[in-house]
């Protein structure tokens, strides 16, 4: 299927916060309680529509234990969007956010859109991190924030799609150099004529600037 843009996402956060489950819910619309722990990186994809354009999301679901960071760090640079996930029922996962964020900022391109996700919102009875705390953290670091439940699918779509919208907006505003694939954005086979710098001759994918 053709797409106007392809955005590469990564999902990061402590082990066991529900990264793989978020991915599965988003790509497959299902929740699997018995799921292997992630080793290295696992991959998912889905097509969404933003302003009538087809956007393909390529999602890289990373392992949470820091021993793997040395490998997954290599993915930060090529990502346009990141979902930074913590578990609302475990405070330590919230406390580690700073580390994750620093990691992300250090190794990714500075325009990467990061969304903060407080997952497992269905487990209200075991909540350890208040929603306000999440909001505050997000505000402090300039992130969009959402609480989700991979189990009930609550807010999962929005999480991914809103991130994509942010990226799309940035493209419209010319913030992203979309010709540099290292930014995690790829132009699809059919080019939209709303790319910055004016329209391009239809059908051709051109590298480098226009005209």
């Amino acid at each position, binding site marked *: 299927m053709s797409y106007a843009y392809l955005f*590469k996402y990564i999902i990061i956060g402590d*082990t*066991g916060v529900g990264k793989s489950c978020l991915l599965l819910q988003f790509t497959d619309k299902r929740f699997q309680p*018995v*799921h*292997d*722990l*992630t*080793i*290295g*990186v*696992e*991959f*998912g*994809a889905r097509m969404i529509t933003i302003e009538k354009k087809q956007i393909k999301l*390529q999602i*890289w679901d990373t*392992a*949470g*234990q*820091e*021993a*793997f*960071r*040395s*490998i997954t*760090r*290599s993915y930060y640079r090529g990502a346009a969007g990141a979902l930074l996930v913590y578990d609302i029922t475990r405070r330590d996962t919230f406390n*580690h956010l700073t*580390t994750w964020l620093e990691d992300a900022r*250090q*190794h990714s391109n500075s325009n990467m859109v990061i969304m903060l996700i407080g997952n497992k919102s269905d487990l209200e009875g075991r909540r350890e991190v208040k929603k306000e705390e999440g909001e505050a953290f997000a505000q402090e670091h300039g992130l969009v924030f959402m609480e989700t439940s991979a189990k009930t699918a609550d807010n999962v779509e929005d999480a991914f799609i809103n991130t994509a919208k942010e990226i799309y907006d940035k493209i419209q505003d010319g913030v992203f150099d979309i010709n540099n694939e290292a930014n995690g954005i790829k132009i699809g086979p059919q080019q939209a004529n709303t790319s910055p710098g004016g329209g391009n001759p239809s059908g051709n994918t051109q590298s480098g600037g226009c005209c």
Partner: protein
Amino acid sequence: MTTSAGILAFHTREAVKVKARVSAATLHRRSQLAPSDPPPAEWRRFSVDPQITTFEVLQNLLAKAFDIKGDFTIHYLAKDDEGKETYLGLLSDWDLDAAFLSSSMPCLNLLIDLKPFDEGLEGWDVITPADLVKPPLVSHVRNNAQQTGNFLMQQMERTLKSFSKVLRGPELSGYLNGVTERYRASKPPMSRREWQNFLDCEGRLIQPQELRRSVFRGGIEPSLRNIVWKHVLNVYPDDYTKDQRIQYLKRQSNEYYKLKATWTDMQKQGIVTEEMQYIMNMVSKDVLRTDRTHRFYAGSDDNKNVAKLYYILTTFALNHPSVSYCQGMSDLASPMLVTMNDEAQAYICFVALMQRLKPNFNINGLAITEKFAHLSLLLQHYDPEFFEYLKMNGADDLLYCYRWLLLELKREFSFDDALCMLEVLWSSLPPSPPEKELPLYEIRFGKDSAHPQSPRVLTRENPYTKVRRIRKQSSSSSLLCGTPKVHNGVIVNEPDNDESRRSSLNEITDDSQDYNPISDSIAHELRMDLENLNKTVLGNTKDATPQQFTFDNIIEEGNTLLENDGPWKQRKTCQGFCGTPDEQCELDFDSVEGETTQNHGSRRNLSCQSSLDRRRSGSSTSASTSASSHSDLVQEKADDSDYEDDHHAYRSKAPPTRSEGYCSEATLSSKEVSCQEDSRSVLDSGVLDFSRKSRSLLPPPGQLGGSNPFMMFLCLTLLLQHRDVIIRKRMDYNELAMHFDKMVRKHNVHKVLHETRIRFEEYLRLGWEASWEELV
């Protein structure tokens, strides 16, 4: 081998589909006489290569397919001149040929009739066609050695075909389930009886290498696993009698329970250190997500086996601060617990396994990086087109293979299949028993012991490591050099460095001779027949068994990635043959200058010669290997002209007399001469280049994959089995990675093992400097 089928009629088709069933009369008869043992009533379908399938081979196939122990007749469905269908008898190669020609489209339809059961056969062991096993058609395979182009793949395809036509062993009925006839291993899984043949009267394992060969070829019967795995995993010190092993296990088990009690007691007393807390958290999260669909761990979260796994991993982590607990360990420990079904023994086996795998969990990631580099090398080498494709899609970093490398592919197959794969993988490695007793801890954990905490626990923040840098240098020529070099803990790129190439080639002289490679048993059997059971050879082989491998050396150095002391560094001196490293150096230089090897009494020459012998007796790259063993001797000269000179010099000398070498059963001058003549015919082909190129570019067995070359070939096989669909569908990085992710637990273990064995054996036969025996 020429078959009558081949002489009589030239079959252009490569495969004929066959479907066969047992006649109704036979079914009826059998059900009356042996109601508890009915043969299958349904069709069996398979394919045969008409060029190499004789009547006898077909009989064997059918006997196996229907588990027939007695005599039987075969009829095939044919159309007579009037177009009427009739069954004609199949009694000979002639008949079979006619059947192939006239009645095999769309498939050859066969009817099996068992000869009447004979009650009077009580007490008689009836030997039937089913018992007779023909060796694979190795000469047929050799005839194709001239082909250029994708030589290796073509060889493999031929070998695959010849393997697929021959079945062996009488105990295959259970084996048939789910295993396509093409991919059966070359021997049935090790039975209790066979296992006992490896032990002396006091239960000592007298042939550890033989044991590994057998497991490598066919695996182990599930009921025997808990016993044999402990040997293959190097749990026991060498030479223990059965009683000693029993006592040893008791001692070690007690030790485990003590280690476990240390921290569980602390916990009960409310003393929980930060380290304990961290590890317990990590482990409990992970065991709840490990193999939970397997019946052993299924059900609610308080499954006792899940708990056992938790205890094993936590005890390990606390007592091995150099690695502590790391994600992936639960996948590795899980099969131990399922197989041993005993918490302490599972712990012991896990510790034994981790002796080898610890480097993979090192925070610096160097061991894994090396494996990536080697896999990349293999891929470039065996399938440059696919590698280019990956490169174009930025997928040549192979990071989607990470899980394969870390977990030794355990998750790529269903659990039971993974057990088959793991034991084959483990037995591809040389034995390396502990010197004394297997240490169950690095530093004993306790509330009073003041030992350093695991670095993993202490540091939350890791510096940006070398791994990313190395992996992202995908087109770096450091890959071509093989193993990245480490200086002062920093990996340095040495593009096209002569020195590094020399040193990596030089490893051939020592590492691979430690290596216990494995190849085809059938060649051995054939040789046995031809030589009329030459006692001398066999006797000598026993006596000349090589010394204990010092494999540990290699592992250690694998850890540090070859801190390079210089090109001529010898890690191991030969036993009495090669003398000092300096002497060996001189020998190297001599051969460089074009003298033939015959003047040197070095072990290297013997193995070269014996590798020649082995080639003759029937492996597919025999001729190429003779050339490549020669190239081994001229490793320094990369340019063709010198090579050719040496090559001619080598050719013209008479073969040396063979002295004692522990290589092989093959022997004797007349055969050597014929070998050389054979090799001459192939030397001019592209085969020569391929193998020579292989040897100069690929790391030797002792290095490849951090001394786990078979695993690298497993990974290569997985990649190559999917390369067509990947390219055809023009998958991009994400898509192909997802494709492999979807294959988790779904790969066909027999197909994968089959292809891997073939490639691996081809690789070993490239003539690494080694005095290794072919797997027979």
